[in-house]
């Protein structure tokens, strides 16, 4: 990757913190699953799907506000609630899923949720800052007197990474629709076949 030593690479400054936050979700899931098994509380994990789903549904208020379906509520506060709510909700759903591979439908829903979380975090943590980073790099190389092709060559890999991230962002809404449909299928099947007692 071609960047100046002072500016640092896109990887170190932006993608690494993103990876760490995603890793924290994975680590919290594994640790929670381990603790539940150790304390013989596996049944708790079974019911964590309910509050997890409710948290994710509650966090959608931000999406409604953003698309002007509702007009009340501070967008910035709602965005924070959306980020925290979906992260925590996803953690609960992942604990609920555990590492038990039974039915296909809920696992597809879990995978869709995972992609949704990653794409959401790309939007939150990377996209804006990364765009600024690439623009700053371009300006920096131009000021150093590099020609336009030389500048493009210098920021090539950062620009490719940014382009990939932009595509990730576009995945967020369609994959949410898939997640919502698959999760609804799972929930309907539970209500249809489960004995609540």
């Amino acid at each position, binding site marked *: 990757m071609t960047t100046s030593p002072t500016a640092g690479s896109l990887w170190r400054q932006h993608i690494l913190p993103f990876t760490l936050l995603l890793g924290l979700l994975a680590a919290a899931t594994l640790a929670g699953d381990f603790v539940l098994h150790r304390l013989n509380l*596996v049944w708790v994990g079974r019911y964590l799907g309910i509050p997890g789903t409710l948290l994710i549904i509650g966090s959608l208020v931000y999406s409604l506000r953003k698309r002007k379906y509702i007009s009340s509520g501070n967008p910035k506060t709602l965005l924070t609630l959306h980020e925290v709510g979906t992260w925590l909700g996803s953690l609960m759903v992942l604990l609920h899923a555990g590492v038990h591979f*039974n*039915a*296909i439908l809920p696992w597809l829903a879990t995978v869709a949720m995972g992609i949704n979380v990653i794409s959401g975090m790309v939007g939150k943590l990377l996209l804006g800052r990364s765009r600024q980073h690439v623009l700053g790099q371009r300006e920096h190389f131009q000021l150093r007197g590099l020609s336009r092709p030389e500048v493009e060559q210098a920021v090539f890999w950062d620009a490719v990474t940014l382009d990939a991230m932009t595509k990730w962002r576009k995945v967020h809404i369609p994959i949410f*629709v898939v997640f919502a449909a698959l999760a609804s*299928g*799972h929930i309907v*099947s539970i*209500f249809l076949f489960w004995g609540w*007692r």
Partner: protein
Amino acid sequence: MNRTVKIVLAANLIVFAILAFVYPHLMVGPGKLIPGHGKLEEDCFACHAPLSGADSPRCIVCHKPEEIGRLTTVGLPIDKPLTSTPFHQKLTRQDCVACHSDHAGVKRFRPTGHFNHGLLEKATRDECQSCHKSPKDTLHQQIRGNCSQCHNQEKWTPATFDHDKHFELDRDHNARCVTCHLHNDYSRYTCYGCHEHTPDNIRRKHIKEGIRSYENCVECHRNADEHDIRGEYGKREGKRDRKKHND
């Protein structure tokens, strides 16, 4: 979302919905059924009632309560019954899922081999030996029935037998059973199983006090407090009263 993405999404979801109806055991079933129920895997409603879960009346269609433990579901005698006495006929109500689960994913959350004795009729509940064999140790081999004297019906161990009535297992006597009860014989005990109470040591102390009959230790000693002495010697010397005054 553009129109193409919407169409692709809708097509995928329709495919998943069709698969859920054609292969429900793979798409929504929580794991495999027990081998005996393998043929029912694609027919969820053979066992499940809509919105209320696995349904006992549907189990009873194949598993007739009067035949459970005696005959198979096709009417053949059972070669090796799991219990010596059939007991499903003596249940107060037919609630199959109170004890049984089927899908592998559901079994994980249920304690296996745990039977709620409260589901049995009162008279049957007290006849433990009709289903359970006595343990092989010498203490239990001497006993017939009346298990509730020392055990409850929730779990066999720990026993509800109150050892403190006979001897307090306090901090000085926090020992393993075999230290005092040798050879798995709980009808006898010895106090010479530890270094503190050697025969010589005990003999010397008791002779010094003028006590010649000291073989049945718990007749006078019920705990580690050497001043809390019961039985004839305790009464004569007022040792118990003295302890009470000290308290």
